[in-house]
């Protein structure tokens, strides 16, 4: 067959189009594979390697990576290798990670009895437990006895921490909350007196003072309880000795996890893996976000997406209804439509700046002056918060919802509207009872797109309420339970912060991957939920097919 004929038949098009799709799929799956492998690998408890170098120094740690040594222009360029050891013990060595050239190593071994310890500060500790003290009393004097006692201590430490946190966060938190409220009440009285000097608030003031005193008493009581708890829990101390002979004493309270890295069976490793993964999902971050979990960020991300959906659906649907059902179709409406479409292409940071200027400073500042004047100059709503971040994102995604809703409304068959109108329904009744239900699946498609975009957006959030570390979730047990003025954590920002703002880059790197995994997972879950709802509606309001 001649080339001309072949070209005309278009076989090459199949190859072209097929390869284009193939490249896209390859990139997507490659990206996912890299993220998953790097992100989910970090929880696996690796063996601890002890290396002795030619100059006699001894190091021990997990092998983080192995690479060829670049030495451009020389014969040994990329021929020799070096390994990166995660030695831990930053408080003793001044570093967590170190490179060792393989050519310098004289001995490599995996000694039994060496522990990998996760603790509250300075990153992990690698060493052997040798002694346990309770107050002044030694309850384990050798390595064997210390090893036997260690797991019990770690479990007790976890429950002690829980008890301490319960007092610190819930009980003392409640007292602080009350005291702050009383302070604001007193200020409110000052304000009123300022406006109406004739009034006398002596009785109210006395009452507030009385209540404040009782709260202060409660506070003192709780503090005493806390100190007692801390003293009893902190009395137990474990001494570890590192491979180069240095000793480190840790309070058992500070130990989060400790395992003999070279003696674990596969099942024990798997158990540790699962428990670390679970901890990552449910714990709060520690040590400038490089340790601990991402629970507040997960919570913040999901809550923000929900708030955004609550705002964007009514706004987008109403706007689309007006454009499609009520507005007289003409040049003006066409212009508006084009403008809305273009709005979707405005860079998100611009929306962030707008959100900061409009929502935070203008609306939030106004709310503060009107309703929270007694708290000023501390802003309540006049500063970034989850509400303003959600509304900014709603503004960012509203064009998507408008466009999708308009299409969905246009797709409702004319015959269906006519049927309703011919029954004597008004236009409003027709829209409410027939058109909107029939358009619901299409509107939800718009919401799905909006959610996917919003969940991954970071730039506008940085201006409108996301923080590196939020001490409190936006939902808690204090009235009114939803604190939409609070700042929050977000997985996307967490990735940026951990990866690029962290003081400890090497330790943070795997966290970036892992956080990415969970950000993707959450977006997928949110989308799947919305798609399920849409499919249900589609089935319910399926249009005639005959």
């Amino acid at each position, binding site marked *: 067959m001649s080339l001309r004929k072949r070209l005309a038949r278009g076989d090459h098009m199949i190859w072209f189009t097929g390869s284009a799709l193939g490249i896209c799929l390859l990139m997507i799956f490659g990206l996912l594979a890299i993220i998953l492998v790097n992100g989910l690998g970090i929880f696996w408890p690796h063996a601890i390697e002890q290396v002795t170098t030619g100059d006699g120094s001894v190091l021990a740690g997990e092998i983080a990576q192995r690479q060829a040594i670049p030495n451009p222009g020389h014969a040994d360029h990329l021929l020799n290798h070096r390994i990166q050891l995660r030695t831990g013990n930053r408080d003793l060595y001044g570093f967590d990670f170190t490179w060792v050239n393989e050519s310098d190593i004289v001995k490599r071994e995996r000694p039994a009895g060496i522990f990998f310890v996760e603790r509250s500060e300075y990153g992990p500790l690698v060493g052997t437990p040798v002694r346990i003290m309770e107050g002044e009393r030694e309850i384990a004097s050798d390595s064997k006895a210390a090893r036997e006692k260690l797991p019990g201590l770690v479990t007790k430490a976890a429950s002690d921490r829980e008890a301490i946190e319960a007092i610190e966060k819930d009980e003392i938190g409640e007292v602080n909350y009350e005291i702050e409220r009383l302070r604001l009440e007193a200020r409110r009285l000052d304000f009123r007196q300022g406006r109406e000097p004739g009034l006398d608030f002596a009785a109210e003031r006395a009452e507030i003072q009385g209540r404040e005193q009782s709260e202060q008493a409660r506070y003192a009581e709780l503090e005493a309880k806390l100190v007692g708890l801390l003293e009893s829990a902190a009395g137990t101390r474990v001494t570890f000795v590192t491979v180069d002979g240095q000793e480190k004493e840790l309070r058992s309270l500070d130990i989060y996890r400790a395992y003999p890295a070279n003696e674990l069976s596969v099942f024990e490793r798997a158990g540790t893996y699962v428990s670390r993964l679970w901890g990552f999902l449910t714990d709060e971050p520690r040590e400038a976000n490089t340790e601990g979990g991402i629970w507040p960020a997960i919570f913040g991300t999901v809550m923000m997406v929900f708030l955004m959906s609550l705002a964007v659906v009514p706004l987008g649907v109403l706007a689309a209804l007006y454009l499609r059902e009520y507005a007289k179709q003409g040049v003006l409406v066409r212009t508006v439509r084009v403008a809305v479409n273009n709005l979707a292409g405005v860079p998100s940071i611009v929306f962030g700046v707008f959100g900061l200027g409009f929502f935070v400073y203008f609306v939030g500042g106004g709310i503060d002056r009107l309703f929270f004047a007694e708290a000023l100059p501390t802003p309540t709503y006049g500063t970034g918060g989850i509400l303003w971040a959600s509304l900014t994102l709603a503004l960012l995604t509203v064009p998507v919802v408008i466009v999708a809703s308009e299409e969905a409304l246009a797709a409702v068959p004319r015959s269906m509207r006519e049927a309703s109108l*011919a029954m004597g329904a008004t236009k409003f009744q027709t829209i409410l009872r027939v058109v909107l239900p029939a358009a619901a699946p299409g509107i939800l498609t718009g919401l799905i797109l909006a959610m996917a975009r919003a969940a991954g957006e970071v730039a506008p959030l940085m201006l409108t309420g996301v923080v590196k570390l939020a001490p409190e979730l936006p939902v808690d047990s204090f009235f009114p339970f939803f604190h939409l003025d609070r700042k929050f954590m977000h997985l996307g920002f967490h990735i940026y912060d951990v990866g690029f703002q962290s003081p400890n880059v090497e330790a943070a790197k795997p966290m970036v991957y892992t956080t990415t995994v969970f950000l993707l997972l959450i977006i997928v879950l949110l989308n799947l939920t919305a798609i399920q709802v849409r499919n249900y509606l589609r089935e319910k309001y399926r249009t005639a097919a005959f």
Partner: protein
Amino acid sequence: MKTTAPDSGLRIRTAVPSKGDSPDVRPSEAEIVCKSVNLAYGENHALHDISMEMEARRVTALIGPSGCGKSTLLRCFNRMNDLIDNVRIWGEIRVSGLDVNAATTDVIEVRRRVGMVFQKSNPFPKSIFENVVYGLRIAGINEKTVLQEACERSLRAAALWDEVKDRLDESGLGLSGGQMQRLCIARAIAVEPEIILMDEPCSALDPIATLKIEELIYELKENYTIVIVTHNLQQAARVSDRTALLWLGRLVEYAPTAELFTAPKDKLTEDYITGRFG
């Protein structure tokens, strides 16, 4: 109320042609009165000086070639032409005494009195029950018992009750084409209109389903005044009492059906019904 029997179609076909000869004993005052009705879509003058009267509890058929204005005339009776921009109507239309186009007339009121069944069945994407009671719901009636009673009555009147009584909460869109059209009829009569307009109600249906609808029309005219637009001359002959032929927006001939089909006065009518017409 009679349910569908397999031989009932035959009965109608034999019964209808003889009707023109035997004078009907029921009272027949004019229900719809048109006096020189004109309609224009912008510059396009679609209806010219239509004057006719349609009798109560009779079936009037509107026939004519495509684009002759049958549907447009039909839609004048419940003001569905309002939905189209740039429509002007002049002349007088009275539906059971109500001046349809008067400024003081409430269009909702007109449409409550004049039900409509469309060419393509158009049930709502709701359950069968909700489809039938739609008109009652929008009128603000929400008592369960009233709705149930109206639903059963309308579905029985539309000869659909026995087929759907066990699945009233299933989607109206899961029915067959003929059932859907009968569902639309049930929906139209649930609000107890005086007049039912049918715009080619059988054109998308198979012959069996068509037969059922025709039988239903025959039953419905006991209580309702029916105006039907059809392309099917046999259908017009079978179901209607009087027939009007429209041509290019003008009323050519309007006479009792038997008379129009057997002894047309107009040459145009004769050509049309004998198929000698372009």
